[in-house]
Structures are given as structure tokens and as C-alpha cells.
């Protein structure tokens, strides 16, 4: 199967202005995102998620390595034909209304006029901005900017959607709506790459996740693989009396197994890794 997004051996160094030192934002990163997959890219602030996305979209060139979208090298404009992008903390032409902004982007995407009007109404409703569509974007709140940003990413009906922190600044209802939009997209056969800090949400929508730290990929796998590693699978006892529970625990302990009362969440794993990262390999 063709990969929707492929990043192979990519490193990105930034020059610190005014000095001869460099920062390594992304360090020999390899990621493969299959078609019709919802992929979560996680990691603490500054771990290189946004930089990775920018290189994948051709907004930046990697210092080393290659990126491609649907098999087309990211530095050619054709690579972006089937991609929609919501940047981190997006900012749009303040002087346009929400509807005009979508019309502008639809025109750039080559949509025909009759098609556009219907599509824009549907999108505004989808992201919950049907009442704000005729107001200037300059007056939008942070959460509304995220919503109009999601709508503009969807306007060309892309096969791959790249969302950088889509729920930042969005209220919980909106965040749940975005999660449901992502699930719908998956059912329509689309691919989604999602960066988020809200791990519980990532957990509920992603097929696979990667955890990044200091520009490196620390872990990758399906949620189940990561949270139920072979040595940490858990056993759920329903309808067991406290006595039975105790004897099972005693038996397990005698065999040398640890008994945990709850499943390790993605958040626990994230915190562990982040701590490990701080402790430093250098």
C-alpha cells in the first residue's frame, strides 16, 4: 500500500541567530503513515513535532533526509495536491469574513463556483461556525480560529489531513466535535496526522501514535501495544469477591508478577518518557 506520508532519516538543525551554535530540532526521524490511518504525534513542547510537520509540507527543507506525501517529494508543489493543513495557533486574513476566507481558499484549490457555495455552508456547519460565517475573522476568538482553520483545511476535500494542535483553545464540546470529525474522516477513507497534548483525546481517535522527545522518536505503536506491553498486560476480575481477588493477587505475587489495579494510560507513559528525556542521555 502506498504511504500517505513518509519521513525517512530526517534531521533538522537551526542556527541560533547571532552565534555559531545550532539547535537540533529533529534528529534522524523516520515515520511512515499508511493510508486511511489516524496517526498521533505526541511529545512535550519543543520536541520537534511542528518542525516535522513543516518539513513534511515543504515549508522547510530538512538538513538531512527526505519527506514525501503520497510518494511525491515534499519540496514539489504537486505533493500538496491532496493535503489539508491546520497550523499551530492559526492566524488568517483578519479583513475577510469566515465565509470569504473559505471562498478564497476554495478558489485557490480550484473548486468551481456552484460547488463552492454548498461546500462552504456544509463546512461552516460542520465546525460549528454557521452563525459566525459572515463576521470578520479579525474578531474571532482563539477557539473559533481553530474551527475556521479546520474548515479551511477540509475545503479542498483532501485525502490527508495534517492537524497541529487542533484542540488548543477549543472548549470541551468543540474538542469532542473535532474528535468526531476525525472519526468521520477515517470512515470516509481519509488519513489524519494529529499532533496534540490532550492525550485522552488522542487515545480515543488514533490508530497508532508516536511519542517524540528532543527530536527523536522514542516509541511508536498502536495504543494497545503501547499501553498493554507484553509484561504489563492486566487482568480484569468482574464479579469477584474480595477474598478471591486477594488470593489471585497472592498467587500472582508468588509467581513474581506485579499486580496493578488499573491499566496504564497513555498519559502515564507520556509522563514516564518525558521524565526519562529530562534525566538526559547526555
Amino acid at each position, binding site marked *: 500500500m502506498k504511504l500517505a506520508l513518509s519521513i525517512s532519516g530526517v534531521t533538522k538543525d537551526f542556527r541560533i541567530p547571532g552565534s555559531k551554535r545550532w539547535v537540533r530540532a529533529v534528529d534522524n526521524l523516520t515515520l511512515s503513515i499508511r493510508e486511511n490511518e489516524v496517526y498521533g504525534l505526541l511529545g512535550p513542547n519543543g520536541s520537534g513535532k511542528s518542525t516535522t510537520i*513543516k518539513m513534511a*509540507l*515543504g*515549508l*522547510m*527543507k530538512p538538513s538531512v533526509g527526505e519527506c514525501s506525501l503520497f*510518494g*511525491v517529494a515534499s519540496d*514539489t*508543489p*504537486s505533493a*500538496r*495536491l491532496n*493535503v489539508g*493543513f491546520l*497550523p499551530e495557533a*492559526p*492566524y*488568517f*486574513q*483578519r*479583513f*475577510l469574513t469566515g465565509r470569504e476566507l473559505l471562498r*478564497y*481558499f476554495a*478558489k*485557490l*484549490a*480550484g473548486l468551481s463556483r456552484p460547488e463552492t457555495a454548498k461546500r462552504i455552508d456544509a463546512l461552516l456547519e460542520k465546525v460549528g461556525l454557521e452563525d459566525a460565517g459572515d463576521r470578520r475573522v479579525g474578531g474571532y476568538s482563539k477557539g473559533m480560529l481553530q474551527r475556521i*482553520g479546520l474548515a*479551511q483545511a477540509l475545503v*479542498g476535500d483532501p485525502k490527508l489531513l495534517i492537524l497541529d494542535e487542533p484542540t488548543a483553545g477549543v472548549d470541551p464540546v468543540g474538542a469532542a466535535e473535532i474528535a468526531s470529525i476525525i472519526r468521520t474522516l477515517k470512515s470516509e477513507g481519509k488519513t489524519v496526522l494529529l499532533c496534540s497534548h490532550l492525550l485522552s483525546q488522542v487515545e480515543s481517535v488514533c490508530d497508532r501514535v508516536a511519542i517524540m522527545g528532543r527530536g527523536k522518536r522514542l516509541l511508536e505503536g498502536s495504543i494497545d501495544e503501547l499501553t498493554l506491553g507484553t509484561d504489563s498486560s492486566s487482568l480484569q476480575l468482574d464479579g469477584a469477591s474480595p477474598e478471591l481477588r486477594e488470593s489471585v493477587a497472592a498467587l500472582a505475587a508468588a509467581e513474581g508478577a506485579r499486580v496493578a489495579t488499573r491499566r496504564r494510560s497513555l498519559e502515564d507513559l507520556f509522563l514516564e518518557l518525558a521524565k526519562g528525556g529530562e534525566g538526559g542521555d547526555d
Partner: protein
Amino acid sequence: MTTDSERLKWSLGRATTIGLNTFREAVRMKLFLAMTALAVCALASSFLFREFNFGSSELKFIADFGFGGMTVFGSALAVIVTAQLFYGEIEHRTAYTLLAKPLYRSEFVLGKFFGAWATVLCFMAMLALCLVFALWWRETSIMAEFPEEFVNGRRIVRYGDILGFAALQSIRIGILCAVVILFSTYATSALFSMVLGMLVWIVGQLQHVAVEAWATVDSLILKGIYALASFALPNFHLFDVGERLALGEALPGSLYGKLILYGALYGSFYLAIACISFNRREF
């Protein structure tokens, strides 16, 4: 690996869409309001000369004044408006969403150029109309007062040439817009491209003086530097035809042709470098 139908073609339509949106931004930024105020002030100040009442030579005075205003205000606006409209998109990170779309960066550069140029051209047209109106109005009353200065009662101001002058200044402004776009593609602030744009304007204006100095220099290296500078920078003095017009001279058609060609060459030269430089820019 892509099929031919999946190859993105360079599209004039997308460049036009970006250009129109740029123009719309200028309209909504109330730039035109500010420009209209400027034009009205210019018109009002030319009316001040009503007090002098020195016959038909007053008309030459108003024409001179108007030509100077068009050149100075037009060039200053070209620098400020272009930097604002182009660099503004980078500064406010709106370019970021746009360039992640399937489009060529050169479409963005050209769209922005034409949008900014069109904005300044509207202002020039406004000034030219004001000037024509002021001259016509004064000429009519002077004709009534000093009929002996008008042979057979015919008007002496050539209004067509005033529009011609405005058209020539529009070419100068186009070159300046292209220069500012070029600077903006690697600038890290709007001020940077404004200051450099102003510098090119001034140097381009005085370049003919440098060319005279060049003739008297012996050093080959200096000669080389002069030659390079006079090639890389436009000679805006070529567009200073207001003097000739005010003296009642007619401009030959060949001059229009030459200056249009000159503007097209320099404009496309700067825009081509701007596209290359913008393609390398990281966001």
C-alpha cells in the same frame, strides 16, 4: 510516480486570486481612505495658487506641482504599501497556511506584486484626475480673465499628456514595487524592506549623477562597481519627463515605447530574483 493529471500546473488563475485578495486587503485596510485624503489635500493646496493670478504661467506652476506630487507620493506609497501587503502576510503568519496549499510560490509572489501595484495605480489615477480637474478649472477662469494669452480661444494645457505622464510614473512605480517585493522575500521585518526600498528609490533617482562621475574615474575596479550598480539598479531619472511637459513639449511615442520596455525588463528581472529567493525561504 505521479500521473500527469496529478501534476500541479502553474496557474495564472491562482496568481490572480491572490492579487485580487491583496487588493481587497488594501481596500479594507482603509488604505484608500488615507490616499483619498492625501489626494484631496494635494488638490486643495494647488487651489491656493488662485491668489497669485499670474495668467497662463500659473497653469505651468500647477502642472509642475501635480507632477512632483504624483512622483513623490506615488513612490513613497509604492514602498510602504508593497512592504505592508507582502511582508505583512509573512509577519502575521497568514502566508504559512497559504503556502501549505497546492500552489507555486511564484504564483504568490506575482499575485502580491500585481495586487500591490494595482493599489498604488488607483492612487495615481486619482491624483491624475485631480490634477486634470484643477488645471481645467483654472484654465477656464484664466481664459475669461486674460483672453489675449489664448490663441483663437484654444486651451493650451494638453490634457492627454498629463494622463501620459501618469502612465509613465506608473511604470516607475511598478519597478519600485518589484524591488520592494524582492527585499521582502528575505526580510525579517517590514521596516527592513521599506528602508531598502527607499534607498533604491533615492539611488535610482540620482544614478545619472553617478554615471557622470564614472566617466572621470581611472580605477578599473571602481569602474566595474559603478557599471554593476548602474546595471543592477534602475535609472529612475529616465522617468522625470515632467519638466519637458511643463515647458509645453510633446512626448514622442517612441519614448513611451522605450520606457515601457525598460520597466518590463527591470520589473521582470527583480521579480524573477524574488521568486528564486522566496522559493528558498523557510517558514
